């Protein structure tokens, strides 16, 4: 059934279709509608779930950890400061190997206060062990929630579904809400072998000495390595069943492109509009959207960018004293594999719009240079 819904409600529908069993959440703009709609769905008994209205995001994740450890499918949603408050427990959820799925609406970190989009919140959590899916449309948001549970429960690692504040979270789009029966066929109920069980009591997370701790970390890394082909496989399988396939990357007119714009989130749609416009003028440009940042698709990145003569990364984030984080990741994948220069542009922080003209300006800047004149370009910034 097609419905015109906001990105936040796409998350609520995704969680409902995934038949989540425990939801623990705390309000924060611009995530709030995710859990508002879920409270209604639970109150109307359209979903058999417990909703714990916790007193902080920290407790939201703690409750999800408890619920998941006991064998329930757990869900939460947050943003920005809330995600930062959860930080300690993001490590905990991943270290405990719990397949929790969380919606994370990208919002800039304070101070100064901002409720608008950028990616520094989620990227600050890059190394916690959580898989990260950056979405471009409301449809993708809904579909990714369902796929994420499937992937997480196979490799026993958590995932966050990331979407831009307002330009996706509050934007209404036509979304196909799949039939529950079909989703049930795709996503079986959660059956947890390592749960808290009074008939088979175990201690989870106890003090571990140097002789074993490293093995726990190795297993986490191995799980994310196993997740990479699984993401591709499940994305394809989802396509076979629902007519919408997904992969780690989403290339657009990349094959014969001399210049490839690398983007994530909603900036991709603006990039594609610009690509089409420039293509009409005979310029060979393309767009590569990074959908999955963790686990990082090294091989896919190398393949898609193999023929590019220039790579231009637009980062809606900044690693202070370094450069954009997606640029850093792309460079690290290409080092020794590809000699094309990588240009790093910082744009759209704190919700500043990235217009087609912004992207044209970026491409014009690169067009004049054989290689980057500087390590980092700040776009349209008042200096």
């Amino acid at each position, binding site marked *: 059934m097609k419905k015109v819904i906001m990105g936040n409600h796409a998350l609520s529908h995704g969680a409902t279709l995934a038949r989540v*069993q*425990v939801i*623990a959440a705390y309000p924060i703009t611009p995530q709030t509608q995710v859990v508002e709609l879920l409270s209604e769905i639970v109150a109307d008994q359209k979903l*058999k*779930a*417990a909703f*714990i*209205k*916790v*007193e*902080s995001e*920290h*407790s*939201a994740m*703690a*409750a*999800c*950890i*408890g*619920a*998941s*450890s*006991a*064998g*329930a499918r*757990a869900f939460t949603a947050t943003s920005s400061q809330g995600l930062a408050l959860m930080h*300690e*427990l993001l490590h*905990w959820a991943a270290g405990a190997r719990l397949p929790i799925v969380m919606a994370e609406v990208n919002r800039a970190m304070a101070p100064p206060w901002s409720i608008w989009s950028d990616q520094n919140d989620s990227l600050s959590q890059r190394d916690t062990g959580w898989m990260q899916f950056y979405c471009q449309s409301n449809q993708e948001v809904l579909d990714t929630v369902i796929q994420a549970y499937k992937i997480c429960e196979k490799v026993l690692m958590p995932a966050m579904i990331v979407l831009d504040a307002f330009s996706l979270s509050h934007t209404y789009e036509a979304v196909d809400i799949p039939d529950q029966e079909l989703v049930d066929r795709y996503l079986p109920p959660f059956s947890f072998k390592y749960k*808290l*069980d*009074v008939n088979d*009591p*175990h*201690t*989870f*997370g*106890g*003090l*571990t*000495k140097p002789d*074993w701790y490293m093995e726990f970390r190795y297993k986490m890394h191995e799980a994310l390595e196993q997740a990479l082909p699984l993401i591709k496989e499940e994305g394809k399988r989802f396509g076979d069943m629902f007519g919408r396939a997904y992969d780690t990357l989403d290339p657009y007119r990349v094959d014969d492109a001399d210049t490839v714009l690398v983007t994530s989130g909603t900036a991709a749609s603006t990039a594609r509009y610009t690509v089409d416009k420039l293509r009409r003028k005979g310029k060979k440009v393309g767009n590569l959207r990074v959908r999955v940042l963790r686990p990082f698709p090294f091989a896919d990145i190398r393949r898609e960018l193999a023929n590019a003569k220039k790579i231009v990364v637009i980062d809606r984030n900044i690693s202070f004293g370094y450069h954009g984080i997606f640029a850093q990741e792309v460079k690290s994948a290409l080092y020794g594999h590809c000699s094309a220069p990588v240009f790093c542009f910082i744009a759209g922080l704190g919700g500043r719009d990235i217009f087609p003209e912004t992207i044209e300006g970026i491409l014009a800047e690169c067009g004049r240079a054989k290689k980057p004149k500087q390590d980092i370009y700040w776009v349209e910034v008042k200096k």
Partner: protein
Amino acid sequence: MKPPLPVEEYMSPGHLACQGCGAGIAMRTTLKAFGKDTIFTFPACCWTVIDGPFPYSSLEVPLLHTAFETTAAAAAGVKAALDILGQEQIKVVGWAGDGGTFDIGIQALSGAAERNDDIFYFCYDNEAYMNTGIQRSGATPYGAWTTTTPVKHFKKEVKKSIDDIVAAHRVPYQATGSVAYPEDLFKKIVKAKGISGFKFLHILAPCPPGWKARPDDSVKLARLAVQTGVFPLYEVENGVYRQTIKTPSRKPVLEYIKLQGRFKHLTNEEINEVQARVDSYYQLLEKRFQD
């Protein structure tokens, strides 16, 4: 003769508690009251270590270690899952020290108490951060030495009344307990098991290294804490206070503190101050006792 407590044990030898550890005795008694259909959550606390290092555990119940400030929230999550999964009969116990309860975990505790989550929250109170090496907490009493309240600057602030804070949430059941009165503690837990909603049990757990006391004095100290009025034993059921171990003639507090090196620097004047503070709080509490 029927023994006062069940003979079944759910805590095995080989645990890592110090000699005379009150927290160990508290757990042993608590488990006898709960039995096997119980799941525990532990934050960072002495029991993180006592249970034993991976892959060992000294408890015969499932146990989820969780972050320092999350005992109540994690327990609430476990309980919510069990309810949805049709395992409502399983009891969920958050088991935290005083630092994890009075200080860093108070927000999650308050949240769960306010929501009246159907869990048990136990605080085994040894009156300082003992696991990290005896630093003062909000539960450290007036006059005590700790490694962060050295003798020249001993703890000047009064012990926070966590019981009054929990009571302000109007939870259905709360009680204090003592390792010197296992039958009293056992009865309280059995009663609490029949009550739905949030249950809070606060157990004084003497710590020989932290209190600078003899290990074989632990139970004696716990008993003296009750007999002097330092730690009265009572329960609050739907707002009704009942003293479960009566102390009509309280012993002088000196008898309790003289066995502990953490108070040995106190002058007679300061000891009188300790006595005055204990009297004042006891009298306040006594007015609430309806039985």
